[in-house]
Each structure stands twice: as structure tokens, then as C-alpha cells.
């Protein structure tokens, strides 16, 4: 893995984790609304996968944390304004933090219903194919969402039409309170690829290099016209489903054990061993993250709420 890419991914991971921590503080302090589903523990795979995209590729993110937007390079002030449902964000309070959108970077937005992403991703793939472009679509989803009919319909549709779509499953073991082994008939969601004659690969989602490699291969395959792939990244949701989730459905021992697999120290050790990351760089990255977040929070706090009557705008083109 290229050293610069490895370090860039690290910066994005740290920025994402610190932003999420700040967002949690803001929510707990009642400064912003709480419709946020934290992604702590899953940032490594999210940042690594998005690093494998080209600037003009399309992205459909899932509802698990802020790292997708950080990794894609959407300005933090915009993300925070969307979280606060203020002006100055990307959707003028219409969709909140669930619908951060950024056409300039191919960020198509988010489906409110889980699994609504798959047909949209297929359609973006269809556009690419019809126009003869060499872009790709990266579509994130969770283990629970792999049980939606839209996943199966879209996987088949993309496979028969050889559309350039990469399906990336973040298997974090839990769909709110439902463990994967009770919701899902297969042990590995990647096995479902077989049913649609596409490659399916399991990787350790807390290992940046594995994710980057697998997603890069799937993207290359899609870009060269060979069709869709499924990558399953095994990971864990270290925080609750939402800020304030009593998290009563899983044992403290289980969560404790998973904190020992927190991808950040794992990645730091690896980058340290490879002499990419030094203590000085680490401090610099942390300070830079803090400064960026401070600036963005300050910007967000000064932004006005949308005019009430603007609720009537933006419906028709």
C-alpha cells in the first residue's frame, strides 16, 4: 500500500472518530438533534474503501457514522449544519444528517428506508454503462439490510446487466438489537454473491489494508466492465445504535472484548511498525483534527435555521 494513501486514510479515520465524539457531546448537550447513528469502530473500513474511489465515482453511504463524508472530503461545516438541520449544510434542513448530499463528489445522498440504496446504486451503474463512462458506484450497507428484497433484486439486476457497482457490506454483528446469526441465514453475507454469479469476498473490516485491497480489486473489475462484486467487511459497532441507546441487548463483556479490536490502535501500531507514523505525526494529526472540528462547530453554531416557509421549496425541479 502506498505510504501517502496509508497516511491519508489514517488522518481521515482520526478526524472521523474525533468528529463523532464531538457530535455525541453536542447531542448530549442538546445543541443538535439526535438522529445520528454513530459509526465508532467502523471508520477504518469506511475510510479505506472510500480511499479506493476516484473523484468522479459515485457513492451511496449507509447510516452508520460520519466517516463516509469525512473520507469523501465533504467539508465538515456542511456536515455539522446538516446534523443541526441548519442552513449552511447540503440539504437546507430538508433531510438532516441522514441525507448529506454532494453532487460535486458523486455523493448521491441516502435512502431513508434501509435497502433503498441498492436500486439507486443500480441506476447510477446503468447511467455509467449507457453513457459509456468508466466510473463506478460504491454502495455501503449493513448486515441487517442484506435481508431486504431490494438487495437481492438489485444484485441480480446488476449482475445480468454487468453494471459497475461494488456492494460493500459492513457486517457489525448487530441490526439494532438483532444479532446477525438470528437475522441472517448465512454466516458470511459474502456467500450471497454466489446466488448472483459475482465475486464475494470476506475481509477483516478492522484491517485497513485488507479492505483497501479488496475494494480496489472490486472497483477495478467494475471499471473494466466485468460487473458487480460483493465485499463483506467484518467489523463491530462499538457504540450503541444511536446516541443514548441503552444498549441492553448485548453483554458488556462482548463490547469490552470488541474494544480490544478497535481499528485505530491496530492501525497505529501497523503504521508505526512501517515507520509511516511517528509520535510527532500522530500529535499533528490529532491537533489538526481538533482544529478542523472546532472551526466547523463554530461555523455551525453561527448558522441560522432555515426560514420556516422554505419547507415549501425544493419539491419540484
Amino acid at each position, binding site marked *: 500500500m502506498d505510504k501517502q494513501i496509508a497516511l491519508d486514510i489514517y488522518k481521515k479515520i482520526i478526524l472521523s472518530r474525533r468528529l463523532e465524539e464531538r457530535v455525541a457531546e453536542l447531542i448530549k448537550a442538546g445543541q443538535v438533534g439526535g438522529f445520528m447513528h454513530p459509526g465508532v469502530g467502523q471508520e477504518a473500513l469506511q475510510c479505506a474503501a472510500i480511499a479506493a474511489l476516484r473523484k468522479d465515482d459515485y457513492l451511496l453511504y449507509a447510516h452508520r457514522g460520519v466517516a463516509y463524508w469525512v473520507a469523501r472530503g465533504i467539508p465538515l461545516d456542511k456536515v455539522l449544519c446538516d446534523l443541526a438541520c441548519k442552513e449552511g449544510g447540503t440539504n*437546507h434542513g430538508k433531510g438532516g444528517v441522514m441525507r448529506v448530499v454532494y453532487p460535486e463528489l458523486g455523493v448521491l445522498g441516502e435512502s431513508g428506508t434501509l435497502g433503498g440504496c441498492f436500486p439507486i446504486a443500480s441506476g447510477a451503474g446503468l447511467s455509467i454503462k449507457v453513457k459509456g463512462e468508466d466510473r463506478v458506484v460504491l454502495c455501503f450497507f449493513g448486515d441487517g439490510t442484506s435481508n431486504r428484497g431490494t438487495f437481492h433484486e438489485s444484485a441480480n439486476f446488476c449482475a445480468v446487466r454487468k453494471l459497475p457497482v461494488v456492494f460493500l457490506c459492513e457486517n457489525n454483528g448487530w441490526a439494532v438489537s438483532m444479532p446477525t446469526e438470528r437475522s441472517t441465514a448465512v454466516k458470511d453475507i459474502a456467500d450471497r454473491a454466489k446466488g448472483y454469479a459475482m465475486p464475494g469476498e470476506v475481509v477483516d473490516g478492522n484491517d485497513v489494508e485488507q479492505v483497501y485491497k479488496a475494494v480496489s480489486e472490486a472497483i477495478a473489475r467494475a471499471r473494466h466492465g466485468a460487473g458487480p462484486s460483493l465485499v463483506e467487511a467484518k467489523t463491530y459497532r462499538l457504540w450503541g445504535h444511536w446516541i443514548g441507546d441503552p444498549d441492553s441487548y448485548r453483554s458488556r463483556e462482548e463490547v469490552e472484548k470488541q474494544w480490544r479490536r478497535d481499528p485505530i490502535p491496530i492501525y497505529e501500531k501497523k503504521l508505526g511498525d512501517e515507520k509511516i507514523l511517528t509520535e510527532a505525526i500522530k500529535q499533528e494529526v490529532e491537533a489538526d483534527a481538533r482544529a478542523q472540528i472546532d472551526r466547523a462547530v463554530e461555523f455551525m453554531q453561527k448558522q441560522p435555521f432555515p426560514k420556516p416557509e422554505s419547507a415549501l421549496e425544493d419539491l*419540484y*425541479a
Partner: protein
Amino acid sequence: MRTISYAQAIKEAIEEEMRRDPTVILYGEDVANFGGIFRITSGLKEQFGEQRVFDTPISENAFVGAGVGAALTGLRPIVELQFADFLFTAGDEIVLKAGMWRYGHGGAYQVPLVVRCPSGAAGVGPEHGQCPESFFMHAPGLRIVCPATAADAKGLLKSAIRDNNPVLYFEHKLLYATKGEVPEGADYLVPLGKASVRRQGDALTLVAISAMVPKAMAAAERLASEGHHIEVIDPRSLNPFDRPAIIESVKKTGKIVVAEESYKTLGVGAEIGAMLMEQALEYLDRPLKRVAIPDVPIPTSPVLEKFVIPSEESIYAACRELLN
């Protein structure tokens, strides 16, 4: 002027728009190789190639939603559903995605999508014979078009394809074979949101939708022979909805009948009734009458179907009642 069928008019609109704009594509179940189960699209694959005209698996959620995704990313897809009823199969993709994607994302994208929906009772029973326009008239963000003549079938479809919003285009199965004069020329457009006064009169306003239009015209003819000159209004689109045209007519006539091939409760007639209560109550000298399906699914037997679907006779009888 030359005369062509409603079905030919639809095909001509698609053909012209596909020729005019390379971003227009057409797909759905059996549309390419077979030419569609109602044979509207035969020959289009040969003309425009398999990338732009293709068959899909039986996967309404995937391919309707893909229409939204393709529209977001620069295409103008025309998606054919085999039956309008399948809008419910793809309900999330229609109501929550096509209708709300633009709004939910603060206007960042537009969704220039057309979903063609063959509608109407034709001996095909509860799940293949509905005119579900009013269900979707309730949903924000969706344009709803329901042509009754060949000329409108062409002009409205061309406008729908060029529109930057999602359009549900309801083509009534029993109108496919009907013929009418259709202007030639690729620039013939009928704007969305403009009602057509099919027949002028001052005794009563008769609003008729889709296949109810020819029935209403026949009923109006009969009433004219009895000395009652009624005004027949075809809204042509339900979103945008030409409310002023109906209100203006009611101001003149003081009486209104709404004929539609959907369920009576909360149908288009209910919306028109509420609108008149709000905006024109003082002009009504008789209560509104609705001719619609009596809130049961559409039965398959022709005997039963005939009983529930509004007819020339039931429209005539409703008008008669108000005129007496």
C-alpha cells in the same frame, strides 16, 4: 389530419424523444424482444439498440429504483410497468424515492423519470385492473398524467419525458385501440397541468378522467338530445392539477359530477369536492356527485366488473339526477 391509435401515439412519442435526446432510455419487463405485453414498444430495440431499450428481470423494486438512480445521474429513463397495479410492488421506490429524493436532499438533484403504467379494468381482476392515480395524487413530488385521447397520449408523454420531475403516466388499456387525430411533427407537445374542455355547456360540469372521457362524451351527447348542454372537462393531469378550470366551469353551471375509475373514498372526486367546499361552495346549487368504484376490489368476472366500473349509463344517471 392523419388518424392514429392511442397505442401508436405512445410509441411515436417515445420514438421521437429517443431520437431527439440520447439520454432517453426505455426498459421494463418484456419491452425489448417482445415489444411489451401490450405491444407498444415493438421495434424500438432494433431502432435504438440494446443499451437503450432492454428487458428487465421481474424485479420492480430494483428496476423502478434504478430509474430513479439513472435519473439522478443524467439519464431520462422511461420505465414500463406491465400493469399500473405494480406501482404498489415498487411503492418505496415510487413514493419515497422518486417522489422525495429531490426534496429530502434540499433540491440537490432532479429526477427526470417517466413510469408508464397501463391502467384500467379489462377483465383482469383486482391486481391488474386498477386505475390507482388517486393513491399517488396524495403523494408529494409525483407528476400524474392520464391522457384520454390519442393526441394527448402523444403530446403529454413527450412533455413528461422532457419534464425534470418524476411522472407517472397512466395509459388506459381500453384506450389503446381508440383512434384520433394526432398532429404530425416532433414538436407537438401538450403541457402538463392544463385541462381540456371536451365539450362546452352551461347546465352541468362533468369531470371525467382517462377512459371515463369517452363514456362522459357519450352521456353528454345523449343529454344534449334531451336539451341539457353539459360541459365535459378532462383534467389530463392530476399533478399538476388544473383546479381553476374546474372552478371556473362550476361558477357557470352550479352543478358537478366527477366520473373516475377508482375507488370512491378519497378518490379524485373527493379532492374536487373538498376543493369546491373551500373555494366555490357558494356557486354550487346542488351537491356534488361522484361516479366511481364502490370501494371494492375489481372483480374478474365480466358480469361483476361491469357492475362496479362506472359506465356511460351510470354517468348519465348521475347527471340526470342533478338536472332534474
